[in-house]
Every structure is written in structure tokens, then in C-alpha cells.
């Protein structure tokens, strides 16, 4: 009947499978939606949506699909409480009343309900005019009328449409920029297992043990082996200061995520300001003196390291391409671009992460170097989806 909702959810980018849909139908069969749109909203959401990042999409689809549904003003709580706990049940089917009820259109019934809600001041069970239980009027529940509006029985205190339209999970959408935890999850993708590592031998090698025991004239001799471990080594180069200050929170999260990711075999972190020159700083404050030669890094950090550069790639074009700019002795006649290319030549696996998700106000002047670097390197915006793409790029064989 409402398979259209299923297709709408899929069209909205929610990856709902047939299995989950069938589960929902099963739940409806079992009466778990309690004939209330609000319960249905939560029921459908808990079965079909598996991440709070997708709640917003669901809300959007739900609003769109059920926007024409009619619902009423809030029913007073005392009235509901009593409706939910009917005090009597009657066998009072009234043919005449039923015929009258059937003649009513949905609009008329709604209008009557609103009028009654104004007038009614107490419980009515078994009658045919008021909102009540076990009666013949067109409202209430557990009654004998064959058409009409269900009032109470289960909660409609908070309308589903209201809940959905609050869209309070908007902040959780994963196309927005991410936090430490999300970064960490992404970095777990950087794994390549091998047993050729320095680690205690803790895993029992059964074949080896049998062979050794046989060679040992049947006296038990156990052979243990090293467990397989991650062999990925990472070189992280971060832009710091100046135009990067806007993204300091984001970059701190990224840095924490990388440094907390204990599964790397080795992690080296260096900093630069605007662009890489002949010196790399060892702390994010970029104080002259606290640095090492970029040449040394290129010579000593082997090419099996995977390089991640984090920077906004926005600077004065002369800082990237010029040679004469003064920078506390960190510059030589080699241009910034040339240094970047040296890294690219040495390290096969290298990506550039850019915290600027949208260029926005940074047009024109700043965009020049952005474009130049973007042409030369694999540049990815710093969002979950793109970070995952970037890290995949670091793992796959060429």
C-alpha cells in the first residue's frame, strides 16, 4: 500500500533494503505502530535507519510523504488517559446510528470532533454523541461504530509531523565536517597486515608444532608465531598558522585522531607554514630553530611511508612559485612548488587534504595557488566521505 514510501526513502539516498522493509511490515502486522503516526515514525526510523547521520534524510522524506495527512490539535491529557483505559464495554450496536455515521464525510467528522472537544467536560462511555469508549459515536476507541476517528487508545500526544519537522538531527549529517572520533574511524582504514613485524610470538603454529614434536621423538614441542600486524607507516605534514587558523579546531581533531590511531607501525609529524621549504618545523608553532632539514626527511624517511599533507593551499602566488621571499632562513633558491614536487617524486602514496570545503569568500587572489596545487596533487576536501576516498587511495596498489 505504501511501498511508495520505500521508494521515496531510497530516492532520498537512504539505503533501505528489502529485508528491512519486510521487517517493518512484520512489525506493523504485530501492531507495533499502535495506529498512531508518531509511533509509526519511531518504529520506521528504528528499523529502517541505522545511523543518526541519516535521521535528517529520513525526517525529510517522512515530511514529504505524509505532508497531506490530517491530524488534530492536541487532545487534553485527562481525556486521553480515560480513553486509553475504557471502563466498560457494551453491546450497543445501533443500526440507525450506524447508517447516520456512514453518511458522514471525513470533513464533517473532523468538524464534529473539534466541536465536541470544545464542549466535552468528562467521561462518556457507551454513548453515541460524545467522544468516548465502547460507544456508537464516530469518535473514541473500542467502540462499535464502523467508521470514524480513533481518539486515544495509544498516544498521539506529540505529532509525528511535529517531531519530523523539528529536523533536530540536521547537525548529524555526515556531509558536514567531522570530529575526532569520525576521523579515527576513517584512519582505521589505513591497514596492511603482515606477520613480518617485531612482536612477541603468541600464536600457536599447529603444523609447526606437529613437525617439531615428531622430530623431538614424540615429546611435545610447541611452536609459536608472530601475529599479523599493521605495517602502515604514515608521514603527516601539516600547514600551521596564518590562513590555517580558521581551521585550527578541525586540524586539531585530525591530528588527535592520527596520533591516537595506535595501529600505525610508525607515525612522523612535521609542520610547515603556507608551503614546504628547506626546513620543516617539529611543532605546530613554527618557531625558527625548532626544525629539521627537509632534505633530511626526504633522505631518511623511506618511500614506503604514506604521506598526508594537510593545508589550505591558499597563499600568495610568490610564496609558492617565487624564490626571493624572506622566511627566517627557511628558504633557499628552490621554490615551494619544487619542494612539493620532490615529495611527490619520492613518495608514491601521497594525498593532500584541504580543510576548505567550499571556496566561498576566498576567491580570486587566493584561488590561484589553490588551483595550481590542485592540478598537481590529489586534493580532497576534509569531510568524511572525501577523507575515506583519500585514505583508500593511499592503500590501493597502483
Amino acid at each position, binding site marked *: 500500500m505504501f511501498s511508495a514510501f520505500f521508494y521515496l526513502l531510497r530516492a532520498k539516498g537512504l*539505503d533501505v*533494503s528489502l*529485508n*528491512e522493509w519486510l*521487517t517493518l511490515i*512484520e*512489525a506493523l502486522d*504485530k*501492531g*507495533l505502530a*499502535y495506529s498512531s503516526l508518531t*509511533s509509526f515514525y*519511531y*518504529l520506521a526510523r*528504528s*528499523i529502517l*535507519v*541505522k*545511523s*543518526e*547521520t541519516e*535521521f535528517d534524510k529520513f525526517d525529510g522524506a517522512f515530511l514529504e510523504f505524509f505532508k497531506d495527512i490530517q491530524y488534530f490539535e492536541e487532545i487534553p491529557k485527562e481525556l486521553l488517559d480515560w480513553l486509553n483505559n475504557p471502563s466498560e464495554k457494551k453491546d450497543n450496536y445501533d443500526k440507525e446510528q450506524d447508517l447516520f455515521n456512514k453518511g458522514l464525510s471525513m470533513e464533517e467528522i473532523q468538524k464534529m470532533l473539534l466541536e465536541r472537544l470544545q464542549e466535552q467536560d468528562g467521561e462518556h462511555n457507551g454513548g453515541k454523541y460524545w467522544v468516548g469508549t465502547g460507544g456508537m459515536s464516530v469518535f473514541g476507541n473500542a467502540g462499535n461504530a464502523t467508521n470514524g476517528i480513533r481518539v486515544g487508545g495509544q*498516544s498521539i500526544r506529540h505529532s509525528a509531523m511535529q517531531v519530523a519537522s523539528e529536523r533536530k538531527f540536521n547537525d548529524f549529517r*555526515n556531509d558536514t565536517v567531522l570530529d575526532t*572520533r*569520525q576521523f579515527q*574511524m576513517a584512519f*582505521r582504514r589505513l591497514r596492511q597486515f603482515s606477520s613480518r613485524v617485531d612482536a612477541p610470538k603468541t600464536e*600457536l603454529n*599447529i603444523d609447526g*608444532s606437529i613437525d617439531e614434536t615428531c622430530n623431538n621423538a614424540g*615429546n*611435545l614441542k*610447541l611452536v609459536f608465531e608472530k601475529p599479523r600486524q599493521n605495517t602502515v607507516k604514515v608521514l603527516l605534514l601539516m600547514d600551521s598558522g596564518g590562513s590555517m587558523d580558521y581551521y585550527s*579546531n578541525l586540524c*586539531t581533531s585530525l591530528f588527535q585522531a592520527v596520533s591516537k590511531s595506535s595501529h600505525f607501525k610508525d607515525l612522523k609529524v612535521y609542520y610547515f607554514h603556507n608551503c614546504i621549504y628547506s626546513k620543516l618545523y617539529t611543532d605546530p608553532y613554527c618557531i625558527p630553530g625548532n626544525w629539521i632539514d627537509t632534505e633530511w626527511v626526504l633522505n631518511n624517511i623511506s618511500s614506503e611511508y604514506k604521506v598526508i599533507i594537510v593545508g589550505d593551499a591558499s597563499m600568495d602566488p610568490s610564496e609558492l612559485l617565487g624564490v626571493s621571499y624572506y622566511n627566517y632562513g627557511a628558504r633557499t633558491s628552490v621554490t615551494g612548488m619544487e619542494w612539493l614536487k620532490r615529495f611527490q617524486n619520492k613518495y608514491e602514496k601521497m594525498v593532500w587534504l584541504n580543510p576548505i570545503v567550499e571556496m566561498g569568500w576566498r576567491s580570486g587572489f587566493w584561488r590561484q595557488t589553490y588551483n595550481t596545487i590542485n592540478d598537481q596533487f590529489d586534493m580532497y576536501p576534509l569531510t*568524511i566521505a572525501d577523507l575515506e576516498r583519500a585514505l583508500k587511495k593511499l592503500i590501493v596498489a597502483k
Partner: protein
Amino acid sequence: MSKQMEQFEGSNEYVVSPQLMNSVNIAIALEKPLLIKGEPGTGKTMLAEAISKALDKELVIWNIKSTTKAQDGLYVYDVVQRLYDSQFGGDGVDDIKKYVKLGKVGEAFNSEKQVILLIDEIDKADLEFPNDLLWELDKMEFHIPETKETVKAKKRPIVIITSNAEKELPDAFLRRCIFHYIEFPSQELMEEIVKVHFDNLDEKLLAQVIEAFYWIRDMEIQKKPSTSEVIDWIQALEIGGINPEIIKKEIPFAGVLLKKNEDLDTVERVKRRFKY
């Protein structure tokens, strides 16, 4: 609609939002695992305990660590012990069963009564971990090749799974779960929660604490304090006999709420700005 279905309605020690209660009951009715996510300290683990108490069922907890493998939860076959025993001619070496020990999932399946199985912090384990449990949680049975036995759930356990993380659980696994995200409690709900934990709490103190707490949460804080920290904080304030008037002004014992130096500094800065 069957009314005799077991319904979870919270307990006097655990305040539950109607939505969460609903999700729990859906999961029980549909016999599917309930996956609970939410900020740390919003009571994900406590939920299983509350359900266990409310429905009067035994709780089996499987704590997941980074080294946990799916196999550990089912059963462990102690090969090494058996080999050593055979070397020294110990008794019953022929009996493989002696060396097969059921893990937490096995225990839950083997129980005569229906139990609650809590798989706590499933995201801590390896990325493939949940996939390795798909069949077992779906069919509620597993096979032990060593003894040629199949362990099948006598009474399908109610499975609660908690996770802190974001988007790393595999799709196939998620599709089999009922999902609930515990939102951070609103001020009213928080007051209710606090009252459950403290019997005779000074109303003034409570109001001040709640106000200060949500104020701090709104600051630019890296690790936001959560419910469990508020409860610790109130305990500290009570023991310290702090005058409620100064709570918001001075934030005493801020170290109970905030666990990072940067965050403590931020609060100091904001406090100073508001003083004058």
C-alpha cells in the same frame, strides 16, 4: 495486538525516554538485536542492566576489547592445555568437551531461561568483528566442529549492543538490528535522572547544577561532559558542602566535569568574562 507481550517501562533507577522504551519493546517483539548509540555517558550500558532488572532476567555481559575476536564469545578450545595433558597422561584427554569452554554468547544460548545478552562497545573490536557474528545472532546457534555439537539457543536471548562510534559497523550487520540513538537528555529529563540517583537533593543546588552544566556544554568544549559526570559532580558538591549560590559563578571541582586541560582553560576564560 497481544498484550501479554513483555513490556519494558523503565525502572525506578533508570529514567528512560518514551522513544527509547519504544525501541526496546520493538526489538523484543521482533526478536532482533537492539543497537544503541549515543554520546559516552548517556547510559547505554546502564540500559541493559535496567532491562534485566525490570524484566527480571539474568544479564550476560560480553565486554569487547580491541583484541576480542568473535570466536571468543562463542567458545574457546584450549588446544595447548590438551596437548600438555596428553603428554603427561592426564585423565580425560580423550574427552574434547573438557577443553571446550563456552564464551558469553554460548553461555547466553545455553541458558535454560531467557537472558539479556549485552555486547558492550562493539566498535572497540576489529572492523570485521560484527560480520563474524552475523550468522550466530541471526540463527541463534553455532557449531563446534571439535565436538561436532551445535549450540542452539534454548530461549532466544534479548540482545543489546552498544556502540560509541560513527559509521564503522558493516552494513550487513546494521540491517539486522533495530537502531536507537540516545539523544543527550533535555534539562527536564536530566533533572529527573539526577533525582533518581540522589534521594534528598536540595532543589536549589539541583537547579544551579543543571544550569551551570548546560551552560558549560554550550561552550566550545572538546570533550563535553555527560550524565555520568554530572552525577559525579553533584556527589562532589554535596560532600564538599558547597553553597549553591556560588556554583555557576565559580564552577567548583570543575575537574570532575572536564577531563581536558584545554577545556578547563576555556571555562576559566568564559568565567572571567562573565564576572565583570
